[in-house]
Every structure is written in C-alpha cells, then in structure tokens.
C-alpha cells in the first residue's frame, strides 16, 4: 500500500487535571505559570492512532504540527520521542490571542504548506478550552470530510479509511474517503511510551530560537544533524491573510469569567426498590437531567 503522509495536530496545555489553589489569577484567567505545561492528553491518543497507521503501512510519515509560544517545541520533541518523524512549530506574535477560528485558519494554512497530506489527526478537544472546535474547523477550512469521536481505525484501503466512532449510545462504524480530518477520543488506546533510541536521537532537537538561546556545547551538532532542527514557521512562512489571524481574526469575545466552586450538597437516600428508582427517574426527567 502507498505510504501515507499524516499530520497530527497537538497543543501544549496547562495541566488542568492537577489544579492547585493558585491555578486561577485574581482576574479569573488561568495562571499558566502555576500549572505544568503538558501535551494535551487527547492529542496523545491522536498521535497513537497515527503511529499505528505508520506501524501498518511502511514508509508512512507522521508529522506533528503545533501552534504556540517557543516553549511549545516541547510538544514536538515529545512526539519525536514517541515515534513521530518530524514536527513544525507555528509561532509568531501575530498568532497570539487566537480563538478556535483563527487557530484553525492558521493550522489549515500550515497543513496546505506541508502539502499532499492524506490524514489529519487531532485530539477531540484540549483540556484548557474544552471546545472541540479546532479539528472540525480545520476540516471545514480545508474543505475536507471529518470524522469525530474516533476510537479505532479498522481499515485503510483504496483511498478510504474505516473508523469506529464512540457516541453516546454506542459505536458507529464509518467509512470516509481520504484525505480527511479525524478527531480522537480519550477513550482510544493511550499513547505508547517514549522510545529509548528515539529519545536519544532527538533529545537535542531545538528550534532555531532555542538553538540561539541555548548555552549547550552542542551547537556544531545542528549543522551535522539537520534533523535536529525543529522548523519554526511564522506568518510569513504560511500563505495567509493577516486579518484572519490572531486577535484580529478572532470573533470570540470573552464577556465574563466566573470562578465556580463546587459545593457538596446534602446527600439523599433513595430506597433501593422499584418505587424509589421510578421516583428518581421521574424527577431526573422532569428537571431535564435525563431525556
């Protein structure tokens, strides 16, 4: 089978799973400095799906694409350690302040620049925004079909991919022509661990900016080993319309951020008989928790 070219969209996010008391600033925004920056968990599930395709179809190339500040290169390195072949960092002041629309636009432009891509994988959503919009919007911008909530790839054959989607009431099997965009659920298999050889090969991988800042003695390495240079793309590197990028390209306006503290309510005891359960069901349907 023909080798594929796969792009995995990955985001560096604050680890909101381990929130401490200083996780929010007084003005209600996320205190990114207090939270460790991690590879968005569902993007790791997406990477695993891409790597499984690579395991099956020799010669397949897995390319990571991330947008963010310079330190987001960490996400690229992490992907390289786990089996990705290369990665691009979209970084520019002009991208800053982007909402999901502007982000998808920038990513779509970058994917066009990578060119000739067969599959685009992304995690279902990022744990900092929880919008689940970027993957689908990238598909729309590129006029590609999209398959969301994917848990498993069952077959790739004759330019088509068959996938299993995890939906609320069951599993749906979908066949889709390629190229297409696939968003992957957290319930899909967890990503494989870092590989020792890949880690030792890529641990010195740096973006040009990082190379300049680096005090390390390995500067000559970057000329000897070109694969250690992580490409940084600015606005000028992707053919794009400045108006659609960053804050200018973002119609989303934050009206208000509220600090919600969950409070434990008094417990209620439901009798464990048919009557008790029926009453509970009625109540839940009435207040629209169910149905």
């Amino acid at each position, binding site marked *: 089978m023909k080798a594929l070219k796969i792009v995995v969209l990955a985001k560096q996010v604050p680890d909101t799973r381990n929130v401490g008391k200083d996780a929010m600033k007084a003005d209600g925004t996320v205190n990114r400095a207090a939270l460790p920056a991690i590879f968005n968990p569902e993007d790791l599930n997406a990477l695993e799906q891409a790597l499984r395709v690579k395991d099956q179809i020799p010669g397949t190339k897995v390319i990571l694409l991330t947008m963010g500040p310079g330190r987001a290169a960490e996400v690229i390195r992490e992907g390289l350690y786990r089996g990705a072949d290369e990665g691009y960092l979209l970084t520019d002041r002009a991208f800053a302040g982007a909402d999901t629309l502007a982000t998808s636009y920038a990513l779509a432009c970058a994917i066009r620049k990578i060119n000739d891509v067969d599959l685009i994988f992304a995690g279902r959503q990022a744990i900092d925004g929880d919008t689940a919009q970027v993957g689908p919007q990238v598909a729309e911008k590129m006029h590609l079909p999209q398959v969301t909530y994917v848990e498993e790839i069952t077959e790739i054959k004759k330019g088509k991919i068959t996938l299993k989607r995890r939906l609320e009431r069951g599993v749906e099997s979908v066949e889709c022509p390629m190229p297409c965009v696939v968003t992957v659920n957290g319930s899909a298999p967890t990503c*494989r661990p*870092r590989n*020792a*050889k890949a*880690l*030792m090969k890529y*641990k010195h991988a740096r973006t040009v900016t990082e190379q300049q800042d680096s005090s390390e003695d*390995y500067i000559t390495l970057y000329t000897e*080993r070109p694969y250690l240079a992580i490409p940084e793309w600015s606005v000028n590197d992707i053919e794009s319309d400045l108006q659609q990028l960053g804050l200018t390209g973002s119609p989303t306006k934050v009206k208000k951020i509220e600090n919600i503290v969950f409070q434990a309510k008094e417990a209620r005891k439901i009798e464990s008989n048919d009557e008790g359960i029926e009453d509970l069901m009625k109540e839940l349907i009435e207040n629209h928790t169910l149905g």
Partner: protein
Amino acid sequence: MDNFYLDNPELKFHLTHPLMKKIVALKERDFKDKDNYDYAPIDFEDAMDSYQKVLEIVGDICANIVGPNAEGVDQEGPVHDKNGVTYAKGTQENLDALIKAGLMGITLPREFEGLNFPIVPYTMAADIVSRADAGFVNIWGLQDCAETIHEFASDEQKTKYLPRVSRGETMAMDLTEPDAGSDLQRVMLKANYNEQEDQWYLNGVKRFITNGDGDISLVLARSEDGTVDGRGLSMFIYDKASKGVTVRRIEHKMGIIGSPTCELVFKNAKAELVGDRKLGLIKYVMSLMNGARLGIAAQSVGIAEAAYREALTYAEEREQFGKPIIQFPAVYEILTTMKAKLDACRSLLYETARFVDIYKTYTHIAEERTLEKEERNEMKKYQKLADIYTPLAKGISSELCNQMAYDSLQIHGGSGFMKDYPIERIYRDARITSIYEGTTQLQVVAAIRGVTAGGYLKQINEYENSEIKPELQNYRRMLVGMTEEYEDAVDKINNIGDSEFTDFHARRLVEMAGNIIMGYLLILDTERDHNYWKSTEVFLKVARGENKGKAEFIRYSNVNDLGKFKKE
C-alpha cells in the same frame, strides 16, 4: 505522573558515582559510535543524560503500567496451553510497553541494535522493574542471557540472535534438571552431533525453567559420551522457531506467579553449539550465572524498596492508641533499620555493578585490540572484585529482601496477612530470591574464598584509606574496630585450616565482611551526600552488634563443635 525513577533519588545518586566517568569512557570507546549511530552519545555528560532520560522511561512504564498490573498478573498467572505458554494479560501488556520503548538489549552494542548501556544503568532498570513487579522482571531481565552470546558465541551467531533480542524476543537459560539443581555437574540432557547434517540435536528434560517457552534459549547439555561430570557439558542455543521442545507443564508457585516456570521436553531439538565443547559449565555457565546473580541482587533490592515503601505508608496512616503507629519506638525502629539496610544493600549492589562493568568492558575491548599492561592489570583487579562481590551482593540482598518483606508485613499486622495489601504478594515474591540462581548457602561457598584469601580485606583497606571529611572519622573508627575483630576471626579459621570448620563458619564470616563493606560504602555515600548520615549511623550501630555476635560465636568455637552440630 508517578515515576519510579524520579521518586527514588537514591538511583540518580548511584548513577552519578565518580567511577562512572571511567566506565562510560571504556564502554563508549571514547565515543567513537557518535559518527555512525544517531542515538550514540557525544561525550560523557551526554551519555549520563541519556541514561537518566531512559531510566525515566523505565520509571514511567513501571509506575503506570507494570506496577498497576502486578496484582492482576499475580491472580491470573500464565497459562499452559497447546501453544506452550500464554502470559497473563498484564504480563503481555508490560512486555509490549517495554519493547515499544526499546528497552530490550539494553547492554548490547549498537551494531546489534542494542543501547550499549553499561551494567550500572541496566541494573537500575532491573531495580525499578522489580519494585513494580518482581515476577515480571524475570521475563524482561532474561535479556542478560544475550551477554553470554555476546561474550562467547561466534560472530555469525551474534549477528543472527542479538538483534532479535534487541527487538524484543525473550530468552531463557535452560540449566536445571530433576537431578541437577545446585549440582549442575549432573546435567544429563543429551546433545548429539550428526556429522552428515552438521547439526546438533538435543534430547532430554529440563525442569524449573523460567520463561522456558522463550524465543531464544541457552541450554546446558551433555555433549561428551561417557562423561559424568561438568567437563562433559557444552552450551547450546535453541531457537524456538526450529521447534523440537514442548512445555510439559508449568509449576504452581508460591510467588513470582507471573513468571512461567516450565518443565521442558527436548525431542530431537535442533541446536547450535556456543563456543567450544566441554566449556559449557566450567566457563560459560559461570559467566551466565554471575550475570544472573547480579540480576537477582537487583531484583532483591527492588523488592526491598517496595516492601519498605508499603511499610512506611501503612505506618504513617494506621492509627492505634490515638496516634499513627509510626510514632511508637517498636515500629519506627523497624522502619529506620529497614531504610538503613536498604541503602546499604543498594550501595553494595551498585559497587558490584561498577566492578562488573569495568571488568566486562575490558574483556570486550581485549577482543578488539591488545590491552596495555596497565589495562590488563586493571581488568584482573576488577575481575577479582567482581568475582567476590557478586555472590556477596546476591546473598546479602536476597536475605535482606526477605527480612524486609517480613518486617513490612509485620508492620501491617493482621491486614498484611490478608490479600488486601500488596505486601502479601511482595512477601511471597521475595521468598525465591535467596533460593534461585544459587541458594544463599551456595553464594557463601563462592564468597568464602574472598574471606580466606583476603580479597575482601584488601578492598576494605582500600576503603579505609579513602579521603573522608573529619565528621565522618568516628564512623571509620567503628569500622576499623570491626575490621580487627573480623581479621581475628579469619586468622583463627585460617590457622585451624580445617575445611569443614571453615565451611561451618563461612556464612558468619561472609556476613561480617559484608557488613564492614556496606558500612564503608555508606560512609563514602555520606561523603558525597550528607543525607546518608542517618542510614550510616543506624546501619553501623546494628552491624556492629551483629558482627560482635558472630565474632563471639567463632571465638568460642573449635573443631570439636562440628560433632555437636552434625546429625548422627
């Protein structure tokens, strides 16, 4: 995310021992691989950085996959079926994760797709895996059988088998038979050479074979007709792909349940001779066993680590009489002594690993070029040290891990006796360590030469002459006293010169030497990191008492005692 390497700073401490500079330089032959392999280190710092980052991977997989799987694996165990052996689900998951992470063939050279790591970081990986699941380390850790192929097999065999190990095929060492356990000279499995086919065939039975259904096995077999002792035995490679061996049964064991222990029937199984005929037991198995013994020492330290952590957590959480039980002297004494002995034992383990590293690497360098005189002397020095330290480390750490598992369970009280806490499994898993790869009694037989011929004393004197800070002098004085006491005991045994009398006191003497050595190692650890002072202090107090008891026994003992102890 939990990580069994990062949460255990003792490992990094031992990894950064000053002798590593020499070990890495030797192992990397002055970093010549860097031009041919993209994952080879550029210099010493780069190599050390790689070891740590790779150990982080091991720590991640062990904390998040192997450890959580351990209980299920213990309940499920492997299954004997028509295909041979099927691992428990968790075992297979563990193995897949470690293979995907490229953590097989860790010590093998890069030309065979290995990582070319020294023994020290490999031993650390074994230490970490054992803490997560002591049964699983047997399957993963059998990769060190590849070292025997690397050392003694032909170039053709190395090229054929070693990359397969690096890619994740598992191994086994088929030594034991129903009538040949501790006494391997009695091995009867028959090896016949068919001249027309230029092919060896194996026939017979092997028993108690860990991972006996592995992909590549090293088999000890009798190749010389009419012989009855060790000089008629040779070493063979059996490739599972060539068939001819069936698993007759797997044992039902007390512990390390995830590790399949097989009875194997060889029926005209094709095999390849390793190295020279007749050297199977006297040379190759000795080397194989030394590697395996270091592995068991690492397994023991890993189990001891797990036992200590379980005990500490429980003692801090469990309240009785209105306070956490860790506040009672009877409990905190046990815990602190456990920690001191664990630190002592780990120091002994990595000291041994360093000696083995230097000696083994010189052995390999000697195949590439003639060693300088100075290098030859160094190789001999470290070979001698490795020979006497390996049984010492295996014997002492396996006994310690049993003691630690016992103490940890004791701290758990009745709860520890139930299946509700991991210590119940750890206790069962610990029990085998002082039995397989040579019982403690056999380690003593191997180690006693270091006592009577003065090998340990020579090294003790070297430690004694190391530069240490003034505040550590007091500890040294204690050890100088203990050394005099030990020398008196050794002199007495040597002067009497009765071999049975020596054997009678051998374990006492070896343990005395071990305590002194561990005491010095802890002082040297404290010299590098002040945090070790407490373990040093506690260990020396306990060890001094233990040694005194043994010294007294020997002082008031004479050859006539043998009759009193001997069963009529």
